[in-house]
């Protein structure tokens, strides 16, 4: 009962708005009235070679969107919806799709490939459509190359869509055989070979077993390496992409192929077309990533060793690899620093050089220094830039001891180049290199900074001067200033920046006002630098920071007042508002933390709050986040005085808590509720009904991103601490919620690190809630209300402790809760705690922790329990 949808599909792409809207509306109606029939029509439209390609393509797209979506909960809904369709419909749709793979129209084939993969993504994990792989593989022996090509493409997409464990090894073997055969040099059609190579890229994740088998691995590697020599550039590129993927997935299997791969890649880097050369470089960057990870694992004593040993490929290849990368640096494009999306061999080569430096450390320095010395003063700008870029690239990795003597010599040269080199590109790279010097050879991380009281003034003069240069150079100068300031963040009252604060602020504000400040992220860089300088201010410079407040407020005021903007202007406005709110947040936090300036700061609080409330009128998510963060900071500084802002602010707080879509806003707002609790204490009581209702709603929603849930539990604790026994009326709602979450998280089996981390966050949130509630009720006549919950809380801790997967934070929180139970409930729970399976061991274990704070709380908890037991 297929419906005729061709005309709607064509009209939906009409240039005429009315026609288009009408068609879209009709399609939607059909979909709502009879989904199976609609999907059926779409699939037969796609399969029908007599239909125009435009309608077929759109039919495929709508079909695909009916199967898959980006948001997880919607994706699940769609999958459920598909699974619940009647079998006959699904079979018919799938038959049409498979049929389309033989269509002479390549667009139709390719669209069908992707839709098939989406259906497979839903059905295979449910053990449905078992014949799919088999029937696709039978296509492989077709004579017609276009069918072969489409089939391989489909196999590739399926591998991308479906988790490896869903396909059994036998089928994997057959897929790989088909794919690798398609890649073979004997395959005459380059379309087929390309499709096969791309399919292998996706299928690599399935090849775990095959890569452990020497013969099979050798064969796959040989075919991939041969494909890198194909006469078709697309095949070469796809083959190198496979090598890159193999380098990270099967790093530990590569040893015997490295010599060959080095030869292949270095030839490609030197001679091949750019897209291929870029992948060849990427291979080495990817190897660096692997080795950096492994070596990091070695260094961190407690996480133990990595399962994969380091083969030190980079170290071994170093003498040949470094010259190859240095050559690439000379292949710059004229305006690459102004081109924000650009990516070329020189950029990729320098990036790789930086990774190599991080992998091998000191060893790289002698290999790069001659190149720098030879080229840094050449008349050809390319040579000067390449030398500078090489220098900047190796500043992370080698030890400060190795680099400092070189940098001490180079610093003046760099400053002179930034001030006077005639070439923008050279100046850009020079400013960036200075930033890297400050990042890695200055500040608390190094023993002796390369910056001294003496050269600091000269550095600042040059940096500030460069902020007037073209946007990309000015942006790098701001970045360099950022790192320079960061180095003084922990310093006491003497910072060599102190005398220059006024000049620095003046110049940075000038930069933010430049006409061209939106180019090269210049404005953002200037505000980030400004924030960093504020962060490193102290008693002495606080008055200068204070002068910034009216300036920033005025600017924010102007953005709030601005009317009638074009959408482009609106976007810039949003960016600016976000930056200004961020800047205010940093200032508020800093001024609030310096005893002497807090009082002076507070005179601005009313105006700042007024402005921030106006900012909420903006409908931009980022701006909301920034304003919310600033308000959190303000609450801390204002303390109980913040109460007077609550009547106007509350609606925005509620709005934030309701924002499931932009869950970051929701998360930040939950945090701000905690800030308010600590600032207002019991003055938050009038707002608690609303807040608690919303928080409980959030917890029961499966639309809200899970990362927001642990902070919501912690927030319960914050509220209870603030309002004490008034929390009573929320107990009946909050406690069952905590109990069921505790139940879940205590028994959670964590398959991977990410899940384990989340489980521990959740546990921590729950424990913080319990602590807050218990301590909130302490010394209240109503404590006995909590007694019935104690057995469950103890059981929660017992189960977690027995499972042995608690991280230190959870351990600490659990320790606290044990003490809190005893401290608040006393003799009501004393025997219960004493008899619990974990309490004694947990406390004993904490008594010998390295962290004295943990030992201290253990001591406290033990006392509290002893008293509870004896009393």
């Amino acid at each position, binding site marked *: 009962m297929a419906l005729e949808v061709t005309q709607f599909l064509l009209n939906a792409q009409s240039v005429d708005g009315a026609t288009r809207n009408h068609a879209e509306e009709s399609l939607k109606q059909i979909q709502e009235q009879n989904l199976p029939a609609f999907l059926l029509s779409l699939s037969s439209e796609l399969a029908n070679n007599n239909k125009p390609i435009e309608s077929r393509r759109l039919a495929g797209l709508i079909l695909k969107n009916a199967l898959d979506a980006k948001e997880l909960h919607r994706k699940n809904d769609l999958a459920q919806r598909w699974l619940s369709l009647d079998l006959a419909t699904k079979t018919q749709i799938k038959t049409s799709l498979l049929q389309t793979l033989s269509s002479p129209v390549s667009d139709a084939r390719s669209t069908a490939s992707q839709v098939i993969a989406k259906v497979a993504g839903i059905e295979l994990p449910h053990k449905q459509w078992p014949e799919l792989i088999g029937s696709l593989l039978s296509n492989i022996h077709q004579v017609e190359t276009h069918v072969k090509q489409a089939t391989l493409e489909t196999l590739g997409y399926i591998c991308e869509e479906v988790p490896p464990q869903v396909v059994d090894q036998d089928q994997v073997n057959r897929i790989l055989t088909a794919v690798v055969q398609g890649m073979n040099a004997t395959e005459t059609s380059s379309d087929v070979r390309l499709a096969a190579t791309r399919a292998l890229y996706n299928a690599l994740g399935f090849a775990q077993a095959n890569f452990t088998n020497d013969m099979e691995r050798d064969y796959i590697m040989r075919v991939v390496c041969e494909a890198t020599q194909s006469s078709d550039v697309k095949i070469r590129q796809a083959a190198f992409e496979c090598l890159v993927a193999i380098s990270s997935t099967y790093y530990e299997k590569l040893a015997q192929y490295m010599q060959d791969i080095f030869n292949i890649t270095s030839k490609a880097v030197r001679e091949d077309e750019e897209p291929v050369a870029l992948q060849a470089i990427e291979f080495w960057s990817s190897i660096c990533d692997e080795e950096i990870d492994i070596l990091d694992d070695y260094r961190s004593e407690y996480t133990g060793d990595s399962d994969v040993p380091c083969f030190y490929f980079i170290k071994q290849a170093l003498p040949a690899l470094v010259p190859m990368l240095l050559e690439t640096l000379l292949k710059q494009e004229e305006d690459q620093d102004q081109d924000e999306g650009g*990516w070329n061999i020189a950029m990729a080569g320098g990036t790789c050089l930086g990774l190599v430096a991080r992998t091998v450390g000191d060893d790289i320095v002698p290999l790069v220094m001659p190149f720098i010395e030879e080229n840094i003063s050449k008349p050809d700008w390319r040579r000067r830039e390449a030398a500078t870029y090489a220098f900047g690239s190796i500043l992370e990795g080698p030890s400060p001891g190795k680099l400092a003597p070189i940098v001490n010599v180079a610093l003046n040269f760099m400053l002179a180049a930034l001030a006077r080199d005639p070439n923008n590109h050279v100046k850009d790279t020079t400013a960036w290199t200075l930033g890297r010097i400050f990042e890695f050879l200055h500040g608390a991380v190094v023993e002796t900074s390369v910056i001294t009281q003496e050269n600091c003034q000269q550095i600042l003069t040059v940096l500030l001067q460069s902020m007037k240069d073209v946007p990309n150079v000015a942006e790098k100068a701001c970045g360099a200033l950022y790192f320079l300031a960061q180095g003084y963040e922990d310093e006491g009252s003497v910072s060599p920046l102190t005398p220059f604060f006024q000049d620095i602020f003046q110049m940075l504000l000038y930069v933010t006002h430049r006409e061209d400040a939106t180019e090269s992220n210049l404005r953002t860089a200037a505000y980030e630098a400004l924030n960093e300088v504020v962060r490193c201010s102290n008693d002495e410079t606080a008055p200068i920071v204070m002068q910034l407040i009216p300036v920033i407020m005025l600017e924010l005021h102007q953005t709030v007042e601005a009317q009638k903007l074009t959408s482009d202007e609106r976007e810039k406005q949003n960016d600016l508002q976000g930056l200004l709110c961020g800047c205010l947040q940093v200032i508020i936090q800093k001024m609030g933390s310096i005893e002497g300036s807090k009082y002076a700061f507070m005179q601005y609080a009313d105006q700042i709050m007024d402005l921030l409330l106006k900012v909420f009128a903006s409908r931009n998510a980022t701006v909301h986040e920034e304003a919310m963060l600033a308000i959190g900071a303000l609450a801390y500084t204002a303390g109980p005085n913040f109460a007077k802002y609550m009547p106007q602010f509350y609606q925005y707080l509620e709005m934030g808590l309701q924002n499931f879509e932009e869950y970051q806003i929701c998360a930040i707002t939950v945090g701000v509720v905690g800030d308010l609790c*600590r600032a207002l204490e019991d003055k938050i009581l009038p707002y608690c009904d609303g807040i608690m209702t919303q928080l409980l709603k959030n917890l029961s929603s499966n639309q809200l991103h899970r990362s927001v849930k642990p902070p919501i539990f912690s927030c319960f604790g914050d509220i209870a601490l603030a309002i004490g026994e008034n929390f009573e009326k929320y107990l009946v709602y909050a406690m069952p919620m905590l109990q069921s979450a505790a139940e879940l998280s205590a028994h959670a089996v964590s398959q991977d690190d990410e899940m384990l981390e989340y489980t521990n966050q959740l546990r921590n949130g729950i424990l913080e809630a319990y602590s807050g509630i218990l301590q909130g009720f302490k010394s209240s006549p109503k404590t006995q209300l909590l007694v019935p919950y104690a057995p469950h809380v103890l059981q929660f801790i017992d189960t977690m402790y027995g499972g042995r997967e608690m991280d230190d934070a959870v351990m600490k929180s659990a320790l606290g809760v044990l003490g809190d139970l005893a401290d608040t409930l006393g003799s009501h729970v004393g025997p219960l705690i004493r008899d619990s399976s974990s309490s004694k061991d947990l406390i004993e274990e904490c008594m010998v922790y390295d962290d004295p704070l943990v030992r201290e709380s253990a001591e406290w908890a033990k006392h509290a329990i002893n008293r509870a037991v004896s009393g």
Partner: protein
Amino acid sequence: MSAPPLHPPQRTPENARRKAYKGQADVNSGRRRRENQLIQLRKSRREDTLSKRRRDDASTPSTEPEPELSDPPSPSDPSPPACTTDADSNNLLGIINGLESENISLQLEATVSIRKILSADGNSLAEEVIRVGVVARLVELLFSNKNPQLQLEAAWALTNITAGTSEHTEVVTNAGAVPKLVKLLESPHSNVREQAMWALGNIAADSQRCRELVIDHGGLVQLLSQFNEHAKVSNIRMATWTLSNLCFGKLPSKSQTKAVLQILQQLLNSIDEKILSDTCWAISYLCSHSTDEIQMVIESRICPQLVKLLMHSSPKVVTPVMLAIANVSSADDSQVQCLIDIGLLQCLPKLLVRNYQKYIKKQACMTVSNICAGTVAQIQAIIDAKMVPLLIQLSQHGETDIKKESTWAIANATSGGSPEQNLSLVGDGCIPTLCNGLKFCDPDLLYACLNGLESVLKVGEMEKTKDGAGMNTYAVLIEECGGLDKLENLQDFDNDAIYEKTIKLLESYWLEEGGESEAPKEPSPDDS
């Protein structure tokens, strides 16, 4: 709406690399950083609020062990100060005036205030107190022999300052506090002596220089005299703790070490957990310096009691005991033998199977592996104690550290074991452990495993000739559990010794196979 052709997925990490290029300013990362700062702040404020509540109860003892002030005169207010810190800093000027005054009761009041400020809120206030220069005055007040309460309070305040950073401690030592505190150890008032010990303990904990300073001023001698039958338990506890801090560094002379060991030997019989724990820490520190000191520890006959304490119920005691024993086990064979002779091997398996903390288990494993590195007889002792199956189990299922240590033990046992011992080790399943050991990256451990495998293979070679089957069954076993692959991978390992050893093994036992597997083969040339 126009339907774009569906695009294949983005394949390259180009975007990520491009973003990292020259680390461009990025609004989002700036915001995340600001958010994280706020989250950190939030976390610490939450903890502050909670810990304030937790202490907000007069009946709750403060978390630091306050000296008992039963001796007259008794302090007016033993509970932690309730006043806010703001008020304190405003009062600071008044306090300094009181401190400087000649009036004893004003001095006392001021000293009490200082002490409270210091115990109330950690370092920020300590900075302020130190900055206003009261330390020198507090040191002077230690001399008020006529007023023990004032001495106590002054010592207490100094104790709190020395609990801070090294700079804080340095201010105190520079003000000449050490000789005066040592002098106070002669005070007739036990609470004053106790407080002085506490301060000295804090100072000794700071650095080797500080420890030497205390010892040079006769602190050790005075401290040892505190251990007498008239001393109160709380005094002994404090003295033991302070003594353990002094033992952290090497003591200047053998006679001092001897004197300390004499006291420690007596203390090991205490039933007080705290005293026991600190005693054992002191012993473990002494054992960490040199084999000479280990020899003195052995001669002082404290080892038997030490081994008994391994079965103590509290990890606070077991942890330092285990550490001490692990340290002794790293000494020479005869010293290790002493441990075996007193029955160490009967205790260790219990530590390994029970649910002890990882740290204790790790030290226990390390001790076993040290013993396995000893003589053939010592290896036999390990086998007789039925520890091998246990070690093999741990090497497969333990936590990573434990895996490593137990692998060490097996590698040591096989490398140094006799052919008969190796037969028994293989029977217990040591081959998979050794093969798995090849995936560790610590070159020393790798080398040890290679040595172990070599040893096992030699025995396999001997067995081959015996039963005439013509197969080195151990080589087959190694191959079956993936050891051969691992050996082949090791050829690329960047370490000459490991490379050579690997090649030697491969060439001696595998390479010629395949083609001429029937032909009898000579064991590798350097076999004897």
